[in-house]
């Protein structure tokens, strides 16, 4: 992507600065689009800024962002995880079973749900590494496998009698209308930022995505990085699952089937590359904000929920197209 034909040391220093501007332009562009869009929606639909709507919006945003993060961490090493939805629903049902079936305390149940997600992600990672088969195929198969296993074990029956305290997590607000679940998302985002910026394993994941061979040659444990990325993806799918359970106050086996599109939308809108090697945590967050506001706005403007998917697709095309054009333009005026 950014290959500067450096001739001397000063150029190398300048390269970082320029790359920062280019990346900031992406994030800034998204922020401007979000501001414009919310202004338009707020002026057309007065209900947009009502406390009730803001609560619903931030609650969806909190969950969609984590779903996006779950995909982003595997995209970091150039992999896919089509099983995000299946892992999410498995974590949901595991949490529900531990709470209702076994009557365990809430923290233990949540940990159990997260562990289920992480374990499934770890299995994906192991399968990808041990067989050397493309993660798209592996996770396509395990998505079916995990979902089937969940259905077999639960007989597709929901857990609806969860303790009331669990639902409090989903109902809590701060600063008036905002959903407290944003704190969970914020915590996850901060952790991922630190992981990919400062931690060794985070850098190794990115290196494995940028060039697996080069990473291997420079001594990075590529296989371990890939397994960690997949495990993390499963864990985050589990986090999203637990958040959904708290929101619905029930563990439903039908959740997760429609996670595929949002899981890709947020990171791709945010500038994360499919080929791996570069992720943007802030970008993914902004991508999720854009998707959530657009979705919410279309419903408020009475465009009809049937057209929402249509506009989501158009948005993805335009955003990725603009990004593409921007990087071409940047190259033409010699910024990279």
């Amino acid at each position, binding site marked *: 992507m950014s290959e500067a034909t450096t001739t001397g040391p000063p150029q190398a220093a300048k390269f970082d600065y320029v790359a920062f501007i280019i990346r900031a332009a992406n994030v800034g562009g998204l922020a401007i689009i979000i501001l414009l869009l919310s202004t338009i929606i707020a002026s057309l639909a007065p209900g947009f800024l009502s406390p009730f709507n803001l609560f619903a919006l931030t609650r969806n945003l909190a969950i969609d962002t984590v779903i996006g993060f779950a995909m982003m961490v595997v995209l970091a090493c150039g992999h896919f995880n089509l099983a995000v939805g299946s892992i999410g629903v498995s974590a949901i049902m595991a949490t529900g079973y531990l709470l209702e079936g076994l009557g365990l305390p809430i923290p233990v149940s949540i940990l159990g749900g997260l562990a289920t997600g992480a374990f499934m992600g770890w299995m994906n990672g192991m399968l990808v590494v041990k067989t050397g088969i493309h993660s798209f*195929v592996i996770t*396509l198969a395990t*998505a*079916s*496998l995990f979902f089937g296993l969940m259905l077999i074990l639960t007989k597709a029956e929901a857990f609806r009698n969860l303790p009331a305290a669990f639902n409090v997590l989903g109902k809590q607000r701060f600063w008036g209308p905002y959903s407290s679940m944003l704190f969970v998302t914020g915590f996850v985002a901060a952790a991922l930022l630190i992981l990919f910026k400062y931690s060794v394993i985070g850098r190794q994941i990115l290196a494995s995505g940028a060039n697996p061979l080069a990473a291997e040659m420079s001594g990075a444990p590529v296989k371990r990085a890939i397994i960690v990325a997949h495990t993390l993806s499963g864990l985050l799918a589990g986090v999203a699952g637990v958040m959904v359970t708290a929101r619905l106050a029930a563990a439903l086996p039908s959740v997760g089937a429609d996670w595929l599109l949002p899981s*890709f939308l947020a990171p791709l809108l945010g500038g994360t590359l499919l080929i791996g090697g570069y992720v943007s945590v802030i970008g993914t967050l902004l991508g999720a904000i854009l998707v959530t506001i657009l979705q919410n706005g279309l419903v408020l403007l009475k465009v009809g929920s*049937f057209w929402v998917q249509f506009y989501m*697709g158009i948005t993805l095309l335009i955003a990725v*197209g603009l990004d593409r054009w921007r990087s071409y333009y940047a190259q033409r005026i010699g910024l990279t």
Partner: protein
Amino acid sequence: MKKFNFSSLLAKADWLPILGVTVLSIIILSFIAPAFLTRTNLFVMLRILSVTAIVAMAQMIVIGLGQMNLAVGAIGGLVAILFGGMMEVYGISVPLAALIGLLIGIACGFINGALIAFTGINGFIVTLATMSIYTGLNYGITESIPFYHMPEQLIAWYDSYLGPIPNIVFIPLVTATLVALFLFRHPWGRYILAVGGNPAAAELSGISVRKTTLVAHTVSGTLGALAGVVSVARLGTAEPTIGAVWLLPSFAAPVIGGAVLAGGHVSVVGTMIAVVMILLLENGLFIARTNPYYMDFFLGLLILAAVVFNRWRTIKSEKKEAAVVIGEKV
């Protein structure tokens, strides 16, 4: 030279193991389940096969190019409801409506191909977006209400015979044959596989990667549309949900059949056998009166087992070839 021919022969018959498993499953099923070989059951299976085979072919062509078409089901669904709508609302005759439906599929596939070829955006992202767009159009137009009144003529055609062969056998066989002829005999088909094998080398040998991408996606869209039309004939209604669950089988069949996701190598025979295999699994579980939930689990297991086996065989044959090369002191 002799050794090369031998290995290429082996490579060409890489569908033999799954054929063996499929035949074995048929024998076992026919022994343990008397209901299996009945005419009714076979017809039920063939009706499903008539759609799934075309869906698998639609995906296989793009896999041959080394890309993916996530929008196959969305194109099928959109064409299905437009096809049904044209006949029910506007009273357009069946052949004309089918023709227009196919043209819409061609247009959808062309849009996919053009977006990928001329913007340089990854095919996965483009077809993810157009999947959303085409599905959105489908639901926006129908508001998820099916068109129920399909002409008798259409259903009669679907259930009719061409000589001794029922149309439901005829449709997937002809499609597969045409796809095989296209991929392995037609220049554009060869270009698709060449680009899938090595885009840079193909471009250097004078093949336009852009045009090839356009052709592959257009053909894929056309086949997706055909699957949509056949679905309407099979179900007797034009339902907006047609195509919603095609994603998994569309990838499962070519991949079990030995296709390499990186492109350049696909097997029409293998894919067709894999379609039958998936169908047998579904049918076997149904006859055994297991819970339908088991289907997802076992399908996942089947895909995993098949790809792991394919992978293992590839590694083994590579090792063998390497040994041969070392033995000949090249």
